[in-house]
């Protein structure tokens, strides 16, 4: 036997490599898109993993703390801590904001961690450099993706923090790197008003005769202090004692504390199903468009290549070549094009993934699925050309 397809490809390899390369870039983009989606899911999971919690207790009827805002009194954790099955319950705050360092500023998720040290929920589980926060104020641990270095001075709102440690892959579900600071500082940062607002508020309080009582010295100061401190957190992170069902404990938190509690699977559903659902649909649309464009390109190229040799195909049919042989030739060329495209695409995606600002996770399973999708697309795209080729009348070879 002789493979007409491979002989044709060898003869016009330049054309094949060229189109294969173009197709490959398209496939590379497609694989990267899938990787972006996987990266988002993985970022979400990393966020949940790194928080070290078994349960997330948030404001009643909210999907906090990541997907919706949630606000709790910072005293509630005590009640949760006393519940059966709870091993630890700590306050935490999350706030996405610009963190300034010298001339530049970086978008980061500032995490306020309760005193405790490594192993406490909310704390970075491991460091790649430096040490954990030891003082209760003005120290920070930053993710390496922020670009900060140990010893850098960060400005968050009006306060300055010294970077004492670095972590890796600590990101928000948006892919923003995290900066950990002590809870008290974070609470202050979250609710800190600007100086003018504070002055204005003080002036107004002082002007109110109900607060400014000459007969009660200290009363005005207490009111002002109460106004400018913040006793809210976004969530309570809970770890469980071994042998306790997360769902059961979550149930009793919901029942007794009039709070909402989520288990790890529920949290994943919220992150994947709600927070990144729109982005996922967006990516899905892109994948569909890219698939259609790839199919159109393959169909067009294969059609043109077939049209280029339509006379030869008429001759092949005249001298008795089977339709099957001609169809196989065209289909094999389409598949070969897809193969070249896939290889180029896979290499492109693998080399370009680290260059993306957000995490791009290329799963082998996605590549395999992509490979088969490419083959299917190529086979389908070759059908137009095959149909045309099979319709060619062998009489055309004899001519008028």
């Amino acid at each position, binding site marked *: 036997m*002789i493979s007409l397809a491979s002989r044709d490809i060898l003869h016009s390899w330049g054309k094949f490599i060229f189109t294969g390369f173009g197709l490959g870039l398209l496939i590379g983009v497609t694989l990267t898109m899938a990787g972006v989606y996987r990266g988002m899911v993985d970022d979400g999971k990393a966020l949940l993993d790194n928080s070290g919690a078994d349960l997330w207790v948030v404001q009643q009827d909210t999907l906090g703390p990541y997907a919706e805002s949630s606000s709790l009194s910072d005293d509630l954790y005590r009640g949760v801590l006393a519940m059966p099955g709870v091993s630890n319950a700590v306050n935490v705050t999350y706030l996405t904001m610009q963190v300034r360092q010298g001339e530049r500023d970086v978008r980061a998720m500032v995490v306020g961690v309760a005193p405790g040290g490594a192993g406490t929920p909310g704390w970075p589980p491991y460091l790649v450099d430096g040490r954990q926060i030891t003082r209760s104020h003005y120290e920070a641990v930053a993710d390496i993706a922020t670009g900060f270095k140990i010893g850098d001075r960060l400005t968050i709102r009006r306060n300055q923090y010294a970077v004492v440690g670095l972590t890796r892959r600590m990101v928000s579900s948006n892919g923003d790197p995290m900066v950990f600071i002590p809870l008290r500082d974070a609470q202050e940062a979250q609710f800190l008003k600007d100086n003018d607002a504070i002055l204005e508020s003080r002036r107004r309080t002082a002007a109110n005769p109900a607060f400014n009582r000459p007969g009660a010295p200290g009363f005005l100061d207490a009111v002002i202090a109460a106004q400018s401190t913040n006793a809210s957190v976004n969530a309570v992170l809970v770890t469980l004692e071994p042998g306790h069902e997360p769902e059961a404990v979550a149930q009793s938190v919901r029942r007794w504390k009039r709070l909402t509690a989520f288990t790890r699977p529920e949290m994943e559903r919220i992150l994947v199903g709600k927070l990144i659902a729109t982005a996922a649909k967006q990516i899905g649309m892109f994948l569909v468009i890219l698939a259609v464009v790839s199919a159109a390109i393959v169909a067009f190229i294969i059609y043109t290549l077939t049209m280029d040799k339509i006379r030869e195909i008429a001759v092949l049919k005249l*001298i008795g*070549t089977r339709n099957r042989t001609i169809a196989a030739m065209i289909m094999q060329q389409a598949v070969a094009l897809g193969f070249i495209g896939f290889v180029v695409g896979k290499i492109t995606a693998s080399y370009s993934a680290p260059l993306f600002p957000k995490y791009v996770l290329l799963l082998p399973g996605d590549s395999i699925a992509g490979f088969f999708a490419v083959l299917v697309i190529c086979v389908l795209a070759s059908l137009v050309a095959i149909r045309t080729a099979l319709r060619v009348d*062998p009489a055309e070879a004899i001519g008028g």
Partner: protein
Amino acid sequence: MGAKGIRIEGLKKRYGSGDTAVDALKSVNMEIAPGEVVGLIGPSGSGKSTLLKSLGAVIDPTAGRMTLGDEVIYDEGWKVRDLRALRRDKIGFVFQAPYLIPFLDVTDNVALLPMLAGARNSDARARAMELLTALDVHHRARAMPSQLSGGEQQRVSIARGLINRPPVILADEPTAPLDSERAMAVIRILNDMAKRFETAIIVVTHDEKIIPTFKRIYHIRDGVTHEEVGEGRAVA
């Protein structure tokens, strides 16, 4: 004349129907013996291509009877079922333009049919080499078609037409693109091959240079054939 060769009796072909019907062949009668080369000449529109297509089993005649080799291929509306296999095994085609497959070298262009039919590549190539040698193009066996001269291409296409040892070769203006020396060479080759492989060959032509070489000539006019004795000049 035995059962072999080509025999055409009362062949008719009508294109279309009703008011627009064209009777391209009205009464075609021909008989070509194995080893014989006959000319088919006629003015434009007289039905030459239609006759070749009918004989080449790519269009269906309307009436009449055709025998190729020892096989009846068409008889008053009845026809052989597998026309593709018939073309592959019984008929060699040579065209005005050689239509070689551009991505196969000379040997594989000739060896293509047996290779596709499942013969061992080495056997098919050996057979191709034999023909290329007979046609004096074996020195170009590994060249690509685009690297050949017009005459060389034509000889390769003749070799391709001969590879399955068909009892019949249909040649459509095989010398049109060639100068007179090359044209004569092609005719000489066709005559040689006819003798060597007992092939019946019909050459459709307008070419004044080669007409005197035929011993017998069929004239076709308005779809009707007339037999005529040719000069049968020896080919140098």
